[in-house]
């Protein structure tokens, strides 16, 4: 009786197994096709299945959650280190998109915009001359040390601007022109050159503060200069001291934005100091936007200091400026110069420069 019962159970079990096996054989292709890509063309070649862990990673990533302050979602780990508990920093994506969509798009527009304005201004107004022309009689404006500091900062700034723009815009602008290999070579060289020379900019900036800060403090009368557009709008020159308000504002812009760029640059170049990726991303944004603003305004400064205004370049070449230039642009300083009898004759100036005096070279005074 027991033996018959056992045989019955075994028979039933075998029958059930066969049915289950058949069921599996019948349904397996359906299950497989349900998991398989619906259209093979939706996936890159060689990938034939959706990752079974995609839901898991989506949860880990938390990409779609609203921002939790500036801190990415942290897990628990025994690994000691900055953000070691962060498996995936979803905000890195936001930063990468922001970098591509904003500075890379707007930097060329800003720079080309400023260049266009300057070209237009030059075409309309030409070189801003001095009433009566240059006299040849000179006044000392900057010491040797001050000019060395200025040109050191200028050379370093131009190098950093060039290499920085290659790093920022090279992928968009240079790859179509020169191809991937030349761009990667230029990018590698620019990165090394940018990082190595960068700290010299900070030191030059400190030297700039020590040399020029006192004379760039705003004073009474500066606002008038601003309200009259620095004399470039309309006719006639506007009253100014040793530095006018435009020069002072440019100076403080260089100092403040320059320090912001330098400090953010140091944060970027030394990633192992304990700052997280969020701080790095913020530093990058500050660095890039600060640099674009400074480069754009520096184009105006270069224009004004060279072809834009008659007699200006001499201040940073020899350290001396023509007395007529001083009277036209810095009349309050001109008054002090005259009171203290600080005007050099053209002969004395030529002698100081180690040149033979030639009246035709220096004097363009108009009657």
């Amino acid at each position: 009786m027991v033996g018959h019962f056992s045989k019955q159970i075994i028979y039933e079990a075998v029958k059930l197994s066969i049915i289950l096996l058949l069921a599996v054989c019948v349904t397996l292709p359906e299950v497989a096709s349900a998991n398989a890509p619906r259209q093979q063309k939706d996936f890159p070649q060689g990938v034939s299945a959706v990752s079974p862990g995609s839901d898991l990673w989506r949860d880990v990533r938390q990409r779609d959650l609203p921002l939790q302050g500036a801190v990415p979602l942290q897990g628990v780990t025994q690994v000691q280190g900055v953000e070691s508990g962060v498996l995936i920093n979803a905000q890195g994506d936001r930063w990468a998109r922001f970098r591509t969509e904003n500075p890379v798009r707007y930097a060329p527009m800003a720079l080309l915009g400023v260049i266009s304005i300057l070209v237009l201004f030059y075409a309309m107004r030409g070189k801003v001359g001095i009433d009566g022309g240059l006299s040849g009689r000179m006044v000392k404006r900057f010491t040797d040390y001050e000019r060395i500091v200025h040109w050191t900062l200028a050379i370093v700034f131009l190098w950093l601007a060039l290499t920085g723009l290659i790093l920022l815009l090279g992928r968009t602008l240079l790859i179509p022109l020169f191809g991937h290999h030349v761009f990667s070579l230029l990018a590698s060289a620019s990165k090394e050159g940018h990082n190595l020379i960068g700290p010299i900019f900070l030191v030059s900036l400190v030297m700039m503060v020590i040399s020029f800060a006192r004379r760039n403090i705003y004073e009474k009368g500066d606002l008038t200069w601003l309200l009259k557009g620095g004399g470039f709008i309309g006719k006639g020159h506007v009253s100014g001291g040793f530095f006018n308000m435009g020069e002072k504002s440019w100076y403080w812009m260089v100092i403040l934005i320059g320090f912001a760029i330098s400090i953010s640059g140091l944060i970027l170049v030394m990633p192992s100091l304990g700052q997280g990726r969020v701080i790095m991303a913020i530093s990058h944004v500050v660095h890039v936007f600060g640099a674009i603003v400074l480069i754009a305004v520096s184009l105006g400064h270069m224009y004004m200091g060279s072809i834009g205004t008659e007699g200006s370049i001499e201040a940073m070449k020899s350290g001396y400026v023509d007395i007529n230039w001083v009277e036209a642009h810095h009349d309050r300083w001109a008054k002090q110069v005259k009171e203290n009898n600080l005007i050099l004759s053209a002969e004395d100036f030529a002698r100081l420069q180690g040149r033979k005096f030639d009246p035709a070279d220096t004097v363009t005074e108009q009657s």
Partner: protein
Amino acid sequence: MIAYLIDGPLWYFSLAVFCIGVLWHLARIIFTRGRTDLSVARGSAGGGAIRNVFSRFIPHREIASQIGLPVVAGYMFHLGLFAVLFFAAPHVIFLEENLLGFGWTPMPHWAFIVASQFAFFGLILLWLRRMLTSVGRLISTTDDHVAAILTFVVMLTGCLALLKGFPELRLLHRFTVELLLIYFPFSCLMHTFTFIPSRAFTGAWFGRRGIDA
């Protein structure tokens, strides 16, 4: 082809020009017979030579405040360049594998970077001073400018090739080094080897005459 030329024949040629040129220049200085000093010695020529070699490292107190910038920039540039040239890891490895057959402990990467920055900053300041001061401009020759610019270019190409990812950048650096080696013996850069004998000669003359300078 260009890589072969720069790594091979041009390298050996520039090295030969440098070595023969420097030795010839030094031999010419050493074996040139000057006028015999017939005056009675008032002091030690040897003592004067040694004193002058070391005392010239520090500027005279009377003019120290006026030449602060070139002194500081000069030390920054020369010490920075010396450190980079002989203690940067890529240079130590290069000297060991290609010239000397032995090496020494290089400085850490951060020190290499700081030394390079000192060298760059010093050279920029010195060259600007040469260009912007009227006296500096008047006493400078084309040789001075070429030497400064060539040295700067060598340093710059070296810094651009730091990542070692591109053979083109290494070749560019090596090519500029070769140009510098060829230019070196015929230029003011020879002061690298002549500044000690020059100071010693002047110091010996001062010492023998009893001049305290």
